[in-house]
Every structure is written in structure tokens, then in C-alpha cells.
């Protein structure tokens, strides 16, 4: 900003643009995970397969009747198939009777 101060006065406009998205409500949370079906969603990177294996192991100890829908059932949530897979989530969750979901890996 090497220009002198004697360079006039400017009313500068906002360079952004209004957001076109409204606040959306989150889904109602569950009272417990016991007996519930949890869907795994994965972008097929950053070792999500190992992460889900560990979560399955740990959650099974706390909630013996927890059930899983594998990421293999859902499809890759990133890359070339992303739009198609994300668009299918509502339908797939209904078909698979999913109660809650986990999505990884944001790394």
C-alpha cells in the first residue's frame, strides 16, 4: 500500500455475494446406540477401513446389539462417484433401515 494519502476518497463495494443457503435443522439425535443400525460412509482414503474396524470393535463392547452397514454398501463418497453416491444416501438409508451414520475421513 505504497500510494500516498492524497489519492482521493473511495466508497468501496462488498466483493462477496449473498449466501444462497438457509440454516437447516439437524436430525433428532438417538437416545442410545444399543440395538441401532449405524451406516459407515467413506471417501476411500486416509485409512477409513481401519478406523471403522476399530470403531466396530469398541462400540460392540459398549453396545452389544449394535448393527453396522458397511461403507461397501454405500459407495465412495468422494471423487468421480461423489454426486451420485451422496444423492443416493436418503434412499439407501431408508432401504437399509439406518438409524445413525458416520462419515470419514476428513484428513
Amino acid at each position, binding site marked *: *500500500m*505504497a*500510494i500516498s*494519502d492524497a*489519492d*482521493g*476518497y*473511495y*466508497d*468501496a*463495494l*462488498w*466483493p*462477496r*455475494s*449473498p*449466501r*444462497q*443457503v*438457509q*440454516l*437447516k435443522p*439437524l*436430525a*433428532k*439425535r*438417538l*437416545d*442410545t*446406540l444399543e440395538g441401532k443400525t449405524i451406516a459407515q460412509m467413506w*471417501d*476411500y482414503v*486416509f*485409512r477409513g477401513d*481401519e*478406523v471403522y474396524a*476399530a*470403531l466396530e*470393535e469398541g*462400540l460392540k463392547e459398549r453396545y452389544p446389539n449394535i448393527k453396522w452397514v458397511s461403507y461397501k454398501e454405500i459407495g465412495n*463418497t468422494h*471423487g*468421480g*462417484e*461423489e*454426486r451420485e*453416491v*451422496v*444423492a443416493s*444416501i*436418503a434412499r439407501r438409508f*431408508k432401504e437399509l433401515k*439406518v438409524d445413525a*451414520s*458416520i*462419515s*470419514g*475421513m*476428513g*484428513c
Partner: protein
Amino acid sequence: VLRASVAAEEAGVPSSTLVCEGFLGLAESTSVGLGMPNIPVAAVPGHTGVQSKEELRRNILDVTMDNVIRNLVQEPQAATEESEPGARDVICGGTYDEVNRYFYEHELSDGLPIVPPTQERVEQFLKHCNRDSEEIIGILLPDSRAATIWSIAVNGVMAGCRPEYMPVLIALVEAMADPYYGVEHSGNTPGGETLIVLNGPIVKALEFNYTQGVMRDGFIANTSVGRFWRLYLRNVAGFLPHKNDKATFGNTWRVVVAENEDVVKEIGWQPLSADMGFAAGDNTVTISRMTGGNHISSISGSTPEEMLPYLADAVVRQYSWQIMFTVGQGMGTLRPVILLSPLIARAVGKWGWSKKDLQQYLYDHARLPAHQWERILRDWTAKPIWNLEEEWRLGRIPKAFFESDDPNRMVPLVWDPEDFMIVVTGDPARNSAYVFAHNGVLGYPVAKKIQDTKVAPKSRASQKKGANVTAA
């Protein structure tokens, strides 16, 4: 990852998003543009990429699992909406220095001085198009802001563009908003930067450099339009470093590359614009996102057969993990761009070689041993499923990738010869080329005609198995 969770929440299913520690800020910023600023995330300590198997398991069991449970059974805090200025609001009044300080402090500029976007200057830009200034070209992720003609003019002023560049700027934003391009991926790990190629008589009319030093700053048209691209990504799409832009290292913006259509015509080739589905002679912009590139010096020989082995070898050397866009995430969407100096293009063309001949040569000779593919994608970068034989047996990739089970067989870098994009430009007196490394489906090539009405040819991405398929 968050977009999948938003889809789950919209379906009435609670979600928990697994986010490595260093990406929590990104998740916070991105969730605002998705309309769910309070969507819960579960932190994963450190980064999974550098942890032992046992270390990762312990981190998940000791830290992440409790977060996941909390995310799914506890109601998150209610979301609040932040107020923002209106589309045409004056946000700052003052001297040049004061305006620049305000814009920088409010993350509205790139660190270089901007031209203050005043009503008068913006109106000068609007006179150079026949579009309603309120028109929305598209909604840009991650901020979900409207890409309007008005905001194009404002950012064009800031970048130092001339008003007559406005039709070029509009075409660029039309390309940015095209779903095939995938603007939402602009802040990802490799920090790729968009390459803009300009074609048509507009190159000369607006005095774009298309000869020596074509990628160098110093020419107002090439430089300011390149800067505009990055400012628009920042201000309207919403890519801010340390927030939505998570480039590991990043690049600065590239100046516009204009093709030398005089030479293209002289040797009987067609310009890139025609390769992208337009008529030769149309004014067009073509964008694609590149993770890097290299200058290929001193291509020597008196025939194409003598010159091209070096070029084919150089093309292969620009590609490592990016082959995941050939087989993996975004099947068949790798599109290497090669700039040929006019001297090399003429030297190849004089032997009767067409551009298609050159593309076929590169397809046949720019190849990697099969075992190298699997080593890069499976062993080195932890993409756990990539196996060429398995992918071919599942019908997901062409036969060229599994013609035998010999691990030393050579497999192509791309699915089709025409995936190589050739542009003639640069110093007419030098025997060099430049090869860009492409970011595949996360910045797929998109071209738009420069005009005041929208005309978009069918993108080749739609023909690729597994590529983004939403219509433009």
C-alpha cells in the same frame, strides 16, 4: 465427507463426521456454507497417514469413539446465522490506503493492493456485457454464494482488469460454476491451481501475450485476469487459506495462457477450443486444475520419432499419485495439458503429423509399468483397494490396463489418446514444451464460449465412467 453427513441429516439420520485434528477449522468453515454450522464432528488425533496400526487403533478407541457417541446421542447447540452486508453495500469509505487496509484485514484481498471497487468503476465493467447485473450464473461451494454478474464486475475491478475484459471474466465464472469442473475441491490437499487457456481472435483484440514468456506476469490482460480468478475463488466461492482452503503448500494464481492460433492454423492443426467442442475461431476459455508442472527443455531431433520419446518420458515423470484419477477416484478423468512451443509444433507438423497423431503417440509411449501403478496407489499412498486386474475384471477400466498379468507390462497414463490436451504457445524460437500435472475429476477441464449468452457443449466428463455426471 461433510456433504455426505449433510445428506444424512437431511434424511433425518443423525451423523458424526470423522475429521483429523488439523482439519477441524476447515470443517467449521465448510459447514456454514452447507447450511449446518452446528453439524457435529468427531476429532481424530493427529493424522492417520503417519500413525502405526496400533497407534491409530488406540486413538480411535481412546478419543474418537466417545466423540462419535456424543455426536449421535446429544443434541448439538442451536445454530445461529451471522449477518452480512447486502450485495451492493458500500463496506468501506476512505483513501486508497484505508480501503486497501480494510480489504486486507477483512480477508477480501490477496495481499496485493486492489483497485477500490467503486460504483462508478463497476458500472464501467457492466457496460461491456449485455447481462442483467443481478443474474445468478451459479451457486459456488463451499460458501454457497451466488456467482452474479455484479460480483464478477466488482472482483474484476479489484484485480486490475480493464472493463473490456468483462466477457472473458463472465465466461470464466460460467466455467467455475460448471459442476464438471468441481470448484468445491479447490481447497484440497495438493493445492492445485487453475490453468486458464484462452482461444480465439479475442487473444489479439485484448492484447493477451501468446508468445515468449506466456506464463510470466507483465502483461496486463494475462496477469489481471489470472488474478481475478483467484480473487473470485476467495471472495465468492469462499476459499480462504487457513479456513476452507487446506492446500498443504499451495500455489499462487497462474496468468492466463493464450494459444498461438497463427501457428496452429499454419500447420493445419485445430486449436484447443475446437478440441473442447467449439468451432475453430470461437473465443473461448478452457479451465482445468493443475497440481504442478515442469518445463521440458531442448527437445532435439529432426523427425517426430527422434523428438517425441523425450516428450513422452517427460509426461510420465510429471505423474505420481495423480494416476488415482486414471484408476481410482474419478476413473479416466486424468487430462494432462502439454504446451508445445511453436518451433516444436512446426517441426512435428511438417512431417504430416496431426494433433491426433501426436496424442496417439503419447498414449502409446507415455506409459508406466503395471507394478509401479500398484506400488504408488496401494503401497505408498495407502489407497487400499487399487489393483488393475481387479478393476478390469469388475469392468471399471479399459482392457489396455490389463492386457496380461505381466507386472512389467506398460499401461497408459490415460484412458484415451485425446485425453492429452495440446496447446501451441510460448517462445516461437525455442524448442521446448511444458507439461502440467492434472488434478483429475477434482478440476476436470471445462470450456465456455466467451459471449453474453450461455452455450455449453456436452462435457467429455459425462462420457467417463464414474465421472461427475450432473448436466451443466
